[in-house]
């Protein structure tokens, strides 16, 4: 069974290039209750990996394990092994703050810091990590805003409060804020679910551009979005005991056209979820 699977896979890890993050038998539980489990897959560098599945399948929970955001939640426990460039992020020689500068995150709702200006928002990550030199901050702010396709519309009003921007612009600001730290991996938790279709399109185009410099892992509810923008795709589903589990991981092309598991096919065809 396993052998056949390997044979059918349209692209082996080797074909997908070097690995950014590796998940081995990852499970997350809250107060002993398993929320997601059995997650084993490799995230290839400079590709977009999407996590799809119906509500409750543990996509967001899994994503938040990748930058140790569960550390804050009392009773949360992450088991299994997650590595970043070969270093175990939970047990390895890597502080949680360093990890988070290397693995950035964009949240479901745009969350710019309301008391800060656009400029201060973009450089906030650098400042938190001790960068004070003005010229360096200026340079990084411009580069990050350009990468997030926001520079042209905000360059003349950098000192304006970030809350004056539209929802789509705020989300791009959050992307710029994450990019300012020059992360290797960018986690995106349904980054367009709070945005209108035009803003969504902008963000999607942005993601395609970004992957040349950063590995993107995105959680999405929107299957068309996963099909449009991702190269690899992990399909999660809630099991009998209400715990999410990984059903299938492969290239997006295979997941959407010729998946191994019938449940994957049913989901991508919209038969449930």
């Amino acid at each position, binding site marked *: 069974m396993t052998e056949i699977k390997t044979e059918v896979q349209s692209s082996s890890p080797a074909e997908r290039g070097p690995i950014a993050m590796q998940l081995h038998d990852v499970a997350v539980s809250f107060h002993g209750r398993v929320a997601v489990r059995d997650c084993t897959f490799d995230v290839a560098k400079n590709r977009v990996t999407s996590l799809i599945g119906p509500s409750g399948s543990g996509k967001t929970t899994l994503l938040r394990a990748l*930058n140790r*955001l569960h550390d*804050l939640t009392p009773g949360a426990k992450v088991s299994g092994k997650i590595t970043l460039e070969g270093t175990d992020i939970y047990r390895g020689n890597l502080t949680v*703050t*360093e*990890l*988070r*500068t290397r693995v*950035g*995150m964009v*949240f479901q*709702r745009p*969350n*710019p*810091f*309301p*008391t*800060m200006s656009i400029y201060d928002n973009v450089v*906030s*990550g650098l*400042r*938190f*990590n001790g960068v004070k030199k003005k010229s360096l901050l200026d340079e990084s702010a411009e580069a990050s805003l350009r990468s997030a396709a926001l520079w042209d519309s905000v360059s003349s009003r950098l000192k304006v*409060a970030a*809350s004056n921007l539209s929802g789509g612009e705020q989300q791009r600001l*959050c992307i710029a*804020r*994450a990019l300012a*730290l020059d992360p290797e991996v960018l986690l995106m938790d349904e980054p367009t679910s709070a945005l209108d279709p035009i803003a969504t399109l902008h963000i999607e185009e942005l993601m395609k551009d970004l992957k040349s410099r950063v590995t993107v892992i995105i959680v999405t509810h929107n299957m068309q979005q996963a099909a449009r923008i991702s190269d690899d795709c992990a399909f999660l589903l809630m099991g009998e005991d209400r715990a999410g589990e990984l059903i299938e991981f492969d290239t997006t092309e295979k997941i959407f056209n010729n998946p191994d598991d019938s449940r994957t096919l049913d989901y991508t065809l919209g038969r449930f979820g």
Partner: protein
Amino acid sequence: MSNLIDLEEPKDTGHDMRAEIRRTSERVRARRVATSRIMVVLCSVALLVAAVPLVLLMYQLFKQGLGQINWKFFTTLPTTPTLIDPTGTGGISNDIIGTIALTVYASIVAIPLGVLVGVYLAETDSKLATTLRVVSQTMAGAPSILMGLFAFSLIVHDLNVGFSSIAGAFALAVLMLPVIIISTEIAVRNVPLTLREAGLALGAKSHKVSLGIVLPSALTGIVTGVILAISRAVGETAPVLLVIGGGYTNSWKPFDPVSSMPLAIFENAKSEWPSQRAQVWGIALVLVIFVFILSLTARIWASRKQQVRN
């Protein structure tokens, strides 16, 4: 009727049902409109009844108080009327200075301490935090004369400091603390978790997130609480009654006895001289305007901040 999805049900029953639903809803709507009108009338009457004492108070305050106020009222010390000069009540400069001194000294201690404790309560869930919360909630409801008694026995008597503005400031600080602690905790807790997460996801250490993101975001709420506490302290008589000594000099020194506007009202109201009893309204008016300006400033400031954010 027992089976709602019975497709065999004849059509006219459905018709009857719809007509009955319409009749019932019309009847209920008519009743609700009537109830609504009665409630509006009741609410308006209640508003008028509640407004009467307030309006009367303000009327009395301005009618009796305005005449008392002139430049000398603010700049001179009080004098005791004599038979030769029965209207010679002097000014209240010492009371104004005393009130400001007491409030400033109390604020210097209570604001930073209260804000820090409030942040601590909001950010941790330790046993100590729970205890502190219960203590401050209890203290917030404690009668204010208790603070005065405490300050008297500890500062004036045990530490032998004597009647002084520092003793009064201590009592007021104890009074202000719970108000500041509670409002700070609420303001900090109201900062959305998503902002905190955004900071942490940028690799910020948690104390940097608290200071750099959470505290500035909660600032409006904290300042509102602080102003509320100050306004309360400015107008309190009971805590300072026993400890400030009612000084008749213009002194900013913390170890001098001072007077305050509420205390002057308390003392003058008991006077045998009609002129001193009348002066009470002038002092009250100044005090009310003082508190009004404070809270107005806070409100304007808070709404400006809010606008910037929206």
